[in-house]
């Protein structure tokens, strides 16, 4: 038994550390097409103090540490590119507090979004959290760390990282810090009015520290939800349609999809408008306002609201959406990758055309779509490509499509979201040099030994 393994076992208990070949195999990859790299150890801490001890050990031994939440990112962000320790946070899944009146929850970093949602359903039915279209085991912390978004991102303030009210972080040197109001008073209500340091840990792919607790905003849960589906055949109209819907202030979630199957959707764009209300009267009024906003479109007969059967409506309105998971197996073999580019709203037509061109060029099928973020401030456009994991050529084609998509996203004025290492390099090459230098200065300051998820956010990993 090696020395590091024994010290890790001393920290977390022998049941929660492994260097077995099968564990290292599993933690060497995720669901996407990124190349695997094996960790030396897999560790599941149970407390912030255990995380601290592991980080101190890693500093002492100069070994990399890669934090992992649900392991669902698909772009390899929790693949240990340079070996070391994968810190699987799933045991730290306690819901510490729900403050109803101040609309926030405090959870440990391994708390799954589905778990928080289920807990709220049971104990605080008047509140809900924003859910990404990921399997419910995706974690709150993992999602905020990658600037994830979800079904309340349109109406309730943007990316999930923008819903963070406070953080507890173990810095790369082992220091435990609290950020936001919780640093000063016992409440986790807000990052303001203090100097906002949370951004040092959001979007950094775990290269600046280990988030161990999160304060996250909760939102009212109206009694009713319903939806409208608006169908167009001219993608150039979509930004205006989205703009008008957002400006009504009547919709909760606003998404969009394009898919070649089933045949009834091929060649059309579908905008899904989710609406919530506390009474039928309110629901009718909201629908009427949204319909009025698009009246000239449907009166021209060039676009219109599609009558949606109840069963299909339930499917369209569910959060998280299960249809993307089903799409993942369309080629059989269970492979699914996507680039979720964050783009200006007016670039939706460009993204649509780029997606179709890339799919055609690489001979792959696709699902394209996206979600409005923060009341029309940006759009998360996804380019999703399924593949057969048992088919190497299929995986190569998808890998090429992802690379093409990253290039296309940047060219049109968007930025690939939660990009894989090669995508990060593309972004960094286009970034202002001074910004990149500033990022590296911060990393050196926080992580002098360079142990935190090395290889990420580096021009030359």
């Amino acid at each position: 038994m090696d020395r590091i393994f024994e010290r890790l076992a001393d920290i977390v208990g022998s049941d929660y550390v492994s260097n077995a070949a099968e564990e290292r195999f599993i933690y060497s990859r995720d669901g996407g097409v990124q190349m695997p790299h094996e960790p030396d150890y897999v560790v599941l801490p149970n407390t912030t103090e255990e995380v601290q001890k592991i980080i101190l050990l890693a500093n002492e031994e100069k070994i990399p540490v890669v934090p992992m939440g649900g392991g669902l990112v698909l772009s390899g962000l929790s693949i240990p590119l340079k070996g070391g320790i994968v810190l699987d946070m799933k045991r730290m899944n306690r819901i510490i507090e729900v403050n109803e009146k101040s609309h926030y929850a405090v959870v440990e970093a391994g708390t799954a979004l589905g778990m928080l949602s289920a807990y709220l359903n049971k104990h605080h039915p008047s509140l809900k959290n924003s859910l990404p279209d990921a399997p419910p085991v995706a974690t709150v912390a993992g999602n905020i760390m990658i600037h994830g978004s979800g079904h309340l991102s349109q109406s309730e303030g943007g990316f999930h990282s923008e819903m963070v009210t406070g953080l507890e972080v173990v810095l790369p040197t082992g220091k435990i810090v609290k950020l936001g109001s919780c640093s000063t008073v016992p409440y986790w209500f807000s990052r303001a009015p203090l100097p906002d340091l949370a951004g040092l840990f959001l979007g950094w792919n775990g290269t600046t520290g280990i988030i161990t607790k999160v304060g996250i905003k909760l939102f009212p849960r109206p009694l009713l939800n319903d939806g409208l589906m608006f169908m167009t055949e001219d993608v150039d109209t979509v930004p205006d349609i989205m703009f008008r819907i957002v400006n009504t202030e009547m919709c909760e979630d606003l998404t969009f999809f394009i898919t070649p199957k089933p045949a009834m959707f091929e060649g059309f764009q579908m905008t899904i408008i989710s609406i919530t209300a506390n009474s039928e009267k309110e629901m009718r009024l909201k629908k009427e306002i949204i319909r009025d906003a698009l009246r000239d479109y449907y009166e021209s007969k060039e676009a219109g609201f599609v009558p949606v059967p109840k069963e299909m409506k339930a499917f369209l309105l569910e959060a998280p959406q299960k249809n993307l998971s089903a799409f993942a197996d369309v080629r059989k073999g269970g492979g699914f990758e996507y680039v979720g580019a964050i783009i200006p709203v007016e670039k939706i037509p460009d993204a649509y055309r780029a997606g179709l061109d890339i799919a055609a060029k690489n001979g792959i099928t696709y699902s394209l779509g996206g979600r409005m973020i923060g009341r029309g401030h940006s759009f998360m456009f996804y380019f999703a490509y399924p593949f057969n994991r048992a088919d190497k050529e299929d995986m190569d084609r998808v890998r090429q499509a992802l690379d093409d998509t990253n290039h296309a996203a940047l060219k049109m004025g968007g930025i690939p979201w939660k990009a894989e290492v090669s995508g990060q390099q593309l972004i960094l090459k286009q970034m202002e040099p001074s910004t990149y230098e500033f990022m590296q200065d911060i990393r050196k300051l926080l992580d002098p030994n360079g142990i935190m998820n090395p290889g990420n956010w580096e021009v030359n990993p």
Partner: protein
Amino acid sequence: MNALNFDPGICAKCETYDCLMKCQYMDFDLESAREERWKLIRGEDTRILNDCVTCYACEEYCPYNNHPFYLIVERQEEKGIHPVPKPIEKSQIKAMAPKGVIAPMKVKEPVINMCYFPMMLGTIRGKLFEGASAIVGSDIFCNLMYLHFARNSVIKERLPKMIENIQKNYLEPSGVKELICYHDECYGTYTSWAPAFGIEVPFKPIHLFEYLYNRLSELKSEIKPLNLKVAYQRPCSNRLSPEIDHFVDDIFGLIGVERVNRKYDHENALCCGGVFEAQQRFDLMEKNQTLNVDDMKENGATHCVFNCPFCFWTLSDLVSQKGMTPIMMSDLCHQALGE
């Protein structure tokens, strides 16, 4: 293409203009009805073409069976009018296109035509449908719904092949001559639309209600009267076969159900509103649905009985919200048999 069997001479002699005067969705006086009707017949622009909500009712109102509704649809298509937004129309034409996967299959009488409602197959069960064969799918779909889209051409193009598919793959090889139509739309296609356009139907269509009545009569001793007061939601395509309506009362008589006497039934029946939604007539949809469902409730109905699955999907939530139980006619009959 098959031409509509329409005789302008019949309209010339008509003095009541029932087709327009009885319309629940357009207002005419006798003079304007006469004027607009002639514009329609001559193929000129008329407000009928844009204002028609495609409820099918004028097919029933015409005392001479001269097919005023089919003429409206013909003219709408000639003029390039799209009652439903074009992307929705195109998408539906694609979605419901024949898949060409039909294969010969031995069937036994009674053969129930489930149109393109595979999700409804579960109702073909029990004593009510003992020994029945059910057929379903895009390759036998009547396509009559494209009347709502002003696309008679789609029906003309597809229907002959559908009829051939049913006859050659199912009925003829099994020596079956009758086809029970679960949906009013299919029955109306074979008894009204196809003859109006000179398309031959080689089998004998039987309406579901006639089948249910006959079958329940055979099983009379096993019926437990339901003692319910129900509202009946008459579907648009039943306007093509109004002679069938008495079977509703006949069936209800057998199973101990009272059809509540209400304003919006029989000739005054209101559309479920689903088509209005597709046509983007949202105010009309909401107004009609409210009038219709309130009328059911105010007249003491505890259940709303449907025969059209599309009407069921459209209205069932609202019916439930008003405290009534939405139910398909076949399921109501199952209940009466304790199934």
